[in-house]
């Protein structure tokens, strides 16, 4: 009996890098600065290399989970793992810059990011419930700690507690769904579950639906879909900004990657039952997310509600048929990740002497003092609004085209009207930066080095993907092959 560990290699490499980073920081004299950034970047790059060099669809889906086959390397996992790794590589320099600005660069946040990424890699490549749950927990536990990593600040701790309580609560729901799904199908692999659900279920159909409902609630918390979103604004606002940047992008990528695989893979035979529910949640999420964002004064909180709304847009894609839905989800996740990472990243890199811009007044007139950074921020905001020639438009186009092709034009209508609403709060930031007089003194950091490069790369990616989306479409096509 051989066990093929190769599909788990990327996650193992990343986790090991995290351990190495911890050890290095423990044994080197610290002057308030961690040296592990380059180690972590190398680890992520190595994992990325391995991800692409693995033969696709190896592993053994039919085997029992004890003997392997719980994680696979198929087109979907490769695409999503690559996305998570790239987001991680972009987030690390932001994180270092931010933690140095608040004088808390102790290195442990790098290790925690590594552990979270390891969990995410497992999450998107799991084809079996036990490994899915464990990956989810590896990711979540690391993120709870990351959220609270600004130890001197009680708001960071409060955010961590709120994130932790709701996260653990949702994990319990998720696990309970897993348990019932196992009870119905007698196995934990997605293939087994799908084939059980496709056969006549008799009296068990109620149990299967109950299980799907629990899973949906669990995922709903992780992706911050309304009505399971209430933790997100608090956690995003209180967490260190660079952690928020990472959390609001990578977690969504991983959670949607797994959600797509579970609902369009394992639970697809029940699609008729859960699609209306998902559609309703999507509508609710888009409306509540955007309308709540209108009222926010805190920039991070506003962006938090905006990312709730964006989860709604992605859910819209899931009502269509598998290959198309998966392709649209992937395209949106790529577009959203680079954009949102950039937007939170701009806020993070401006931090200086433990302070950072929190409100519109803090960044008013920024265009005069930081023309490039402001231009980048404007690009991100325009992309979040979904204006053409940016990645955000391409994402929305694909997502809503998918909904319309599945005859859910109402979803597209609500989504696009809500995009028009969102223009209001995104534009307020542009107004503050470009149309209002600058503050008396320049309180924010000058952006240089790796963090500046990351922002530039994100802005460039947003524009390139917006103008020449052909390559992205081809990737998505390939990634979605798993769902045929």
């Amino acid at each position, binding site marked *: 009996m051989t066990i093929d560990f190769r599909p788990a290699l990327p996650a193992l490499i990343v986790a090991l890098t995290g351990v190495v980073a911890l050890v290095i920081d423990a044994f080197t004299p610290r002057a308030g600065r961690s040296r592990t950034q380059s180690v972590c970047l190398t680890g992520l790059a190595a994992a990325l290399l391995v991800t692409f060099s693995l033969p696709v669809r190896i592993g053994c889906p039919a085997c*029992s*989970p*004890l003997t392997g086959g719980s994680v696979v390397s198929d087109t979907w996992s490769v695409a999503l793992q690559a996305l998570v790794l790239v987001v991680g590589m972009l987030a690390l320099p932001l994180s270092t810059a931010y933690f140095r600005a608040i004088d808390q660069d102790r290195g442990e946040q790098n290790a925690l990011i590594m552990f979270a990424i390891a969990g995410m890699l497992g999450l998107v490549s799991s084809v079996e*419930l*036990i490994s899915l*749950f*464990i990956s989810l*927990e590896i990711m*979540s*536990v690391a993120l*709870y*700690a990351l959220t*609270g990593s600004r*130890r001197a600040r*009680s*708001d960071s*701790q*409060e*955010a*961590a*507690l*709120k994130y*932790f*309580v709701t996260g*653990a*609560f949702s*994990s*319990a*729901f998720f*696990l*309970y769904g*897993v*348990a*019932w799904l*196992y*009870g119905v199908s*007698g*196995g*934990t692999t997605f293939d087994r579950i799908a084939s059980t659900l496709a056969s006549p279920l008799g009296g068990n159909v109620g149990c299967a639906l109950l299980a799907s409902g629990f899973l949906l609630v669990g995922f709903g918390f992780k992706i911050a879909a309304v009505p399971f979103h209430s933790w997100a*604004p*608090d956690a995003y*606002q*209180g967490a260190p900004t660079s952690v928020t940047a990472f959390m609001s992008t990578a977690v969504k990528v991983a959670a949607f990657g797994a959600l797509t695989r579970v609902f369009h893979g394992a639970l697809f035979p029940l699609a008729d039952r859960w699609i209306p529910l998902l559609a309703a949640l999507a509508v609710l999420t888009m409306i509540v997310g955007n309308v*709540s964002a209108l*009222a*926010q*004064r*805190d920039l991070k*909180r506003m962006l938090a*509600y905006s990312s709730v709304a964006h989860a709604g847009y992605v859910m819209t894609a899931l009502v269509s048929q598998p290959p198309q839905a998966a392709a649209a989800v992937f395209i949106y996740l790529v577009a959203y990740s680079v954009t949102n990472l950039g937007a939170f990243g701009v806020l993070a890199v401006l931090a200086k002497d433990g302070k950072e811009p929190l409100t519109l007044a803090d960044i008013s007139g920024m265009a005069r003092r930081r023309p490039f950074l402001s231009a980048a921020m404007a690009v991100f905001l325009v992309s979040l609004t979904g204006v053409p020639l940016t990645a955000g438009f391409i994402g929305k186009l694909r997502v809503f085209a998918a909904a319309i092709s599945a005859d859910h034009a109402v979803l597209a209508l609500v989504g696009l009207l809500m995009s028009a609403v969102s223009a209001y709060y995104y534009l307020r930031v542009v107004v503050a930066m470009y149309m209002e007089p600058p503050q008396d003194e320049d309180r924010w950091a000058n952006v240089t080095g790796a963090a500046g490069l990351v922002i530039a790369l994100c802005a460039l990616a947003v524009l390139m993907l917006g103008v020449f989306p052909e390559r992205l479409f081809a990737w998505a096509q390939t990634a979605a092959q798993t769902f045929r």
Partner: protein
Amino acid sequence: MSETLLRHALALSLALFAVGAVGVLLRRNVITVLMCIELMLNAANLALVAFSRSWAAVDGHVMALFVLTVAASEAAVGLAIVIALQRARDTLDVDAFDELRG
């Protein structure tokens, strides 16, 4: 495992889960909330073990072991956060944690 026993086990599991969930939503002390979450996880464990017996397979048992481990690590991080917050605010009442709002 007989059909009746499975039913009883599942009924108990559902009841535990419900008690846990209601407790998380209603109780105000953070420690109690954490204990309620543990209750929910153990309800899931009970269901897993019961299902595992009824399928005459080991997957569910294995999974329950994993869940115990995960719950322990989760509790470790959770309690660390609670202690940090308790030091800062000198209270364990969840309603007192209202610094973050829009």
